[in-house]
């Protein structure tokens, strides 16, 4: 595998930025959560890449632990989405402006 570590980290950085842009630009709550997922994924790539470079399992293990945590977060977040949809009727993030002013 002749890929420099820098390239792996760069790829992860680009994916992270993409996820970030998704969080900032989308108005649908679910799309924002998808952006968060992308960011978590990017973190995982860095972990695995580092683990491969240092030839140590710890990075992969951490990436593994990251996955259930992401799952738990998604679970609670989607439950909130359901609740919001039921009580407000919309998932447009900009409509939740109770903190305005």
């Amino acid at each position, binding site marked *: *595998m*002749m*890929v*420099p*570590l*820098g390239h*792996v*980290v*760069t*790829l992860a*950085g*680009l994916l*992270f*930025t*993409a*996820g*970030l*842009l998704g969080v*900032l*630009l989308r*108005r*649908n709550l*679910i*799309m924002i*959560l*998808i*952006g968060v*997922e*992308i960011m978590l*994924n990017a973190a995982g*790539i860095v972990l*695995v*890449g580092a*683990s*491969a*470079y240092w*030839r140590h*399992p*710890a990075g*992969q*293990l951490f*990436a*593994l*632990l990251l*996955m*259930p*945590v992401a*799952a*738990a*977060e*998604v*679970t*609670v977040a*989607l*439950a*909130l*989405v*359901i*609740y919001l949809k039921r009580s407000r009727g919309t*998932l447009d993030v900009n409509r939740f402006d109770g903190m305005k002013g």
Partner: protein
Amino acid sequence: MTALLFYILSALALLTTLLCLTRPNPVHALLYLMQALFAVALLYYLLGAPLLAAWQVILYAGAIMVLFLFVIMLLEPASAAKNAAAKRFRWIPPAMIGSLLLACGGILVGMDPLKSGEIAGFWLSPRGFGQALFEHFGLAVEIVSLILLFAAVGAFHLARRHSANREDAS
């Protein structure tokens, strides 16, 4: 050979991610994301983490994305173009943030002496993976399972329909 694969897969991941983020229809976006996750799983495999690659597909793409899909189907039957009233130049500030972050990241990576460190062949078998996991990270596994339990309970509570008795609705 593997280097070439790596670059193709990373290009694929990036492309599908960008496509995912630009679709108005959430279902389309989700499907593109699944493709991105598949690409990432293959990347994991290339980087010497086969078990992780499998779990990426099973857990991430299989469970989490499906959950997303369920919720989208449940809630938004007709997700038309809801972003009609989007302002025109609202992409500029996020683009600036993104480019700033990329620039900083690029500078930091560029300064790093390790950036040109070659990733030699590394392969962690499932057995080795399991050994390392339960030897050093046993407590972490327990905690993560507890987290999952709490999440499940919380999600159940949050998404419950509060129909008849209003008093215990909190």
